């Protein structure tokens, strides 16, 4: 069987989801943001909710997410995406509302907003990209930076006495009664990406059932900020990040 016999439209088993636009992403090569964008586009496409979904963009690398997924978007002030999502969902209760935030946005300047949105049990989805660093501004220490991890503001590694400990915000949110589904996933390998897709789909389905906030953390890489190649960054994440941030479901009220 030669290549031309295989390259027929009926034999396609995987292609770029229709909801992703043709704009070339501005992310660095190998950035996890691209993979998560694709997964979100796939989930929204497969659920057939393109017309009913409103995304809230954060401030950070993913500030331009509205250029890449063909749905309605709003742009929030830094860290305030959960507040904007609260308003959007309360005004349009029949819509699916999700925020897409990084760790500098959600776990630092936006800590108050996310905690109170979770505490109020808003029926929204929060997708939290945790790469342990401020990627866009040049690799400064974030609240989620690991102990001993070198960043541009902790050149000798994060020191607990000086800089405190990594903030496990996902575990904190699981303790709140307003949350329905809390999980931590990654997208560095194909099986992990498929699991993350199932988790994001479940989160969107839960948000439609009015049982509380669904929160999906994606442990990600920032290979530019970590000063590693994309493949080496994935390996470093497996060896170091997963110890501090173990993968798996943390809370599921329907189980």
């Amino acid at each position, binding site marked *: 069987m030669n290549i031309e016999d*295989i390259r027929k439209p009926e034999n396609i088993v*995987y292609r770029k989801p229709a909801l992703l636009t043709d704009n070339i992403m501005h992310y660095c090569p190998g950035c996890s943001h691209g993979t998560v964008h694709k997964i979100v586009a796939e989930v929204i496409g497969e659920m057939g909710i393109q017309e009913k979904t409103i995304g809230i963009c954060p401030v950070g690398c993913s500030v331009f997410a509205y250029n890449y997924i063909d749905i309605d978007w709003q742009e929030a002030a830094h860290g305030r995406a959960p507040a904007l999502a609260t308003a959007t969902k309360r005004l349009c209760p029949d819509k699916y509302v999700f925020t897409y935030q990084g760790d500098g946005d959600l776990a630092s300047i936006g800590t108050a907003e996310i905690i109170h949105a979770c505490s109020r049990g808003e029926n929204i989805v929060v997708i939290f990209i945790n790469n342990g660093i401020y990627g866009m501004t040049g690799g400064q220490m974030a609240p989620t930076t690991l102990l001993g991890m070198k960043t541009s503001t902790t050149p000798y590694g994060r020191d607990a006495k000086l800089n405190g400990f990594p903030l496990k915000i996902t575990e904190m949110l699981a303790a709140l009664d307003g949350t329905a589904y809390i999980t931590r996933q990654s997208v560095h390998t194909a099986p992990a990406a498929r699991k993350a897709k199932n988790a994001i789909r479940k989160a969107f389905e839960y948000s439609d059932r009015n049982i509380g906030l669904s929160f999906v953390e994606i442990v990600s890489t920032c290979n530019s900020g970590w000063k590693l190649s994309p493949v080496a960054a994935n390996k470093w994440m497996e060896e170091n990040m997963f110890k501090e941030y173990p993968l798996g479901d943390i809370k599921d009220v329907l189980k």
Partner: protein
Amino acid sequence: MAFKGIIEVDTQRCKGCSVCVANCPTHSIRLSSKVNGKGYNYAEMVGDACIGCSNCAVVCPDSVITVYRVKVQ
């Protein structure tokens, strides 16, 4: 039952991150020695061992890979 697959790479959008290369179970992808318009060595299929499992396309951050798959007896 065996499967045979091929991949098609959108070479102008590929950024040569090689995450697909690391995720290919049959070592059927490599980075080309040629570069695209942005100067990246883009991914290309090598050999005929591809089984069309889509792992490369699933992890591709820029969604540049299309996978075709057929059953062969």
